[in-house]
């Protein structure tokens, strides 16, 4: 069993967790390679926190296996698993000083006193909290508490660091600062990290990989860029930003490309296994990757302007397509007379080549 997951610090195989009739995590398989910062991103109730708690051992899987560093941990209680965790409310011990909070994990591991003190000092310096040793948690600001929670988690040098929306309770400015610090710290010590969030921007900023979860399943796991540029499902395409979705038909194949017809136009997407000649297909394109032109321009998809929202740097056009579907197009305002259309105007939409992606049924 160890061989298969030797490279992965955390692996879940076919893990299902149900609470009574509710399936929170549904046959989930996931591998997290060493040193990777992975975000579990999804709407509330998608099973991301349950997944984290399954890795931690606070919940037991109904089915499937969980591995930490290749060891199956299903029967290992939380306190014997090699992880540490930062909680949403930080969960600092209110009756202990900062130093004692940070030293707690080391004391539980029975480290000798001098080594313990040295590591606490070192770690507090790492999170810029040197000199705060004797304060109590309630004497600290939210950002400082968050750093103590982080220090307490990393000081034990766990195989995996679990973060349960730790930035959720901070105000926006502080949250952005902490994002940068968290990312730097994670790269500095190279710790495998699983980060649960419902904030897309946060997930994209911080992560090496993002797993988008929905209904207890992972819809797609990829790098932030891949997720945005090549979402695999309707859900991902719409959860991360806005997408225009078209129903088309596979019209033919030209070498590596598939030719797709959407109404009167034809687009190219990379050929992939499973495409059927003449079969239906769903494709999508991001709003900023559609160019608008005058209605008499050739090879464009005709549409009618419904609303226009001028935002300075960009203008958002809400259009009605030939089959009544609504489309969103973001236009960069490069010159004062860019995209002069007003509601009621007829325009033609040009989908940027390479920007069109195929959606799996999801």
């Amino acid at each position, binding site marked *: 069993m160890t061989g298969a997951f030797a490279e992965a610090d955390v692996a879940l195989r076919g893990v299902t967790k149900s609470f009574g009739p509710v399936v929170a995590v549904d046959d989930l398989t996931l591998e997290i390679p060493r040193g990777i910062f992975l975000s579990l991103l999804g709407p509330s109730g998608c099973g991301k926190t349950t997944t984290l708690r399954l890795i931690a051992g606070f919940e037991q899987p109904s089915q499937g296996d969980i591995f930490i560093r290749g060891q199956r941990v299903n029967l290992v209680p939380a306190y014997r698993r090699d992880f540490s965790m930062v909680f949403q409310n930080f*969960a600092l011990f209110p009756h202990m000083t900062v130093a004692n909070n940070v030293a707690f994990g080391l004391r539980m591991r029975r480290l000798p006193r001098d080594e313990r003190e040295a590591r606490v000092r070192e770690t507090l310096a790492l999170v810029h909290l040197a000199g705060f040793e004797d304060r109590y948690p309630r004497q600290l600001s939210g950002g400082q508490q968050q750093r103590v929670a982080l220090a307490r988690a990393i000081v034990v040098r766990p195989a995996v660091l679990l973060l349960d929306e730790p930035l959720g309770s901070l105000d926006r400015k502080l949250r952005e600062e902490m994002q940068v610090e968290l990312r730097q710290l994670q790269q500095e010590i190279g710790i495998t990290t699983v980060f649960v969030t419902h904030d897309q921007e946060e997930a994209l900023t911080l992560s090496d990989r993002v797993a988008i979860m929905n209904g207890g399943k992972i819809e797609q796991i990829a790098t932030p860029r891949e997720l945005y540029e090549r979402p695999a499902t309707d859900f991902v395409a719409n959860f991360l930003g806005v997408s225009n979705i078209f129903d088309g038909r596979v019209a033919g194949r030209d070498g590596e490309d598939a030719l797709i017809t959407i109404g009167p136009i034809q687009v190219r997407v990379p050929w992939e296994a499973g495409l059927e000649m003449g079969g239906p297909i769903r494709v999508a394109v991001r709003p900023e990757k559609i160019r608008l032109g005058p209605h008499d321009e050739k090879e464009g998809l005709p549409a009618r302007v419904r609303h226009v929202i001028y935002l300075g740097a960009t203008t958002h056009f809400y259009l009605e397509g030939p089959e009544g579907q609504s489309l969103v197009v973001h236009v960069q305002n490069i010159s004062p007379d860019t995209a002069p259309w007003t509601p009621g105007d007829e325009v033609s939409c040009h989908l940027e080549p390479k920007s069109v992606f195929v959606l799996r049924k999801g």
Partner: protein
Amino acid sequence: MEWVRCFTRNRWAWALVLPPLLFFLAFFVGPLLYLFFVSLHVESQTELYGSRLTLDNYLRVAGDPFYLLIIRRTLTAGLAVSGLSLLIGYPVALTMVRMPASRRSVFLMVLLFPLMVSNVIRAYGWIAILGRRGVVNNLLRDGGLIQAPLPLLYSVETVVVGLLTILLPYMIICLVNALLTVDRTLEEAAQALGAGPLRTFLHVTLPLSTPGIASGLLLVFLLTLSAYVTVQLLGGPQSKMLVGLVYDAVMTFIWPRAAALAFILLGISLGVTTLMLKGLRPQRVQGQG
């Protein structure tokens, strides 16, 4: 002194506080001061107290082995009842806190039910169980284990057991309230850092429940110190405690001595309260020293 500023700024707050404050001053602080005044006088056959000032009432207690024995017995009983109720009550409270809220309220009702029965009735219940012809002695004799009935009543131990059954619910309620405020994620945080169930309890749950431990211990201790009916009925004349002596002094119209004994009782209460709060430091739960 935030509250002082609050009152100087808001006359309405004064208007609300004044009636209970006056009541308290007139019917508690005033009589207390008067009682202290009485305790500093010699006895009198005809008046409430004699005209000469004296410290004799206090000095006599300090020098009399009988009074010292009673004081020691009172302290021992108080500490035994509060300590035992903590030991017995803590596991119960811990179990109740882990229950779903609906079942917990049922348990709480069951717990409070004995308090609806008068102390006198419960003490007679104990007499029916522990007396010479009580349930226990009858069973032992019928079983052939003893010839003569065992003297189970009229001892300090019996008083402690009797008071335990009355005061245990107070302790459990204090502990349940304190444990309910302990954030469960703190226990998970301890586990995440490698603390097993026992060490999680010792380092996190127990210290965070000290406000409940402190209030439970104090409540039970002070109620034990001031218990009369149960002590009298289950302890008999051999196991008197301080309150009993105060009562005896009042019954024999020796008012200054009764007052002095009352103040010694008050002093013990204050002393033990201070020691308990110093030892437990319930305020550290809020991260203040």
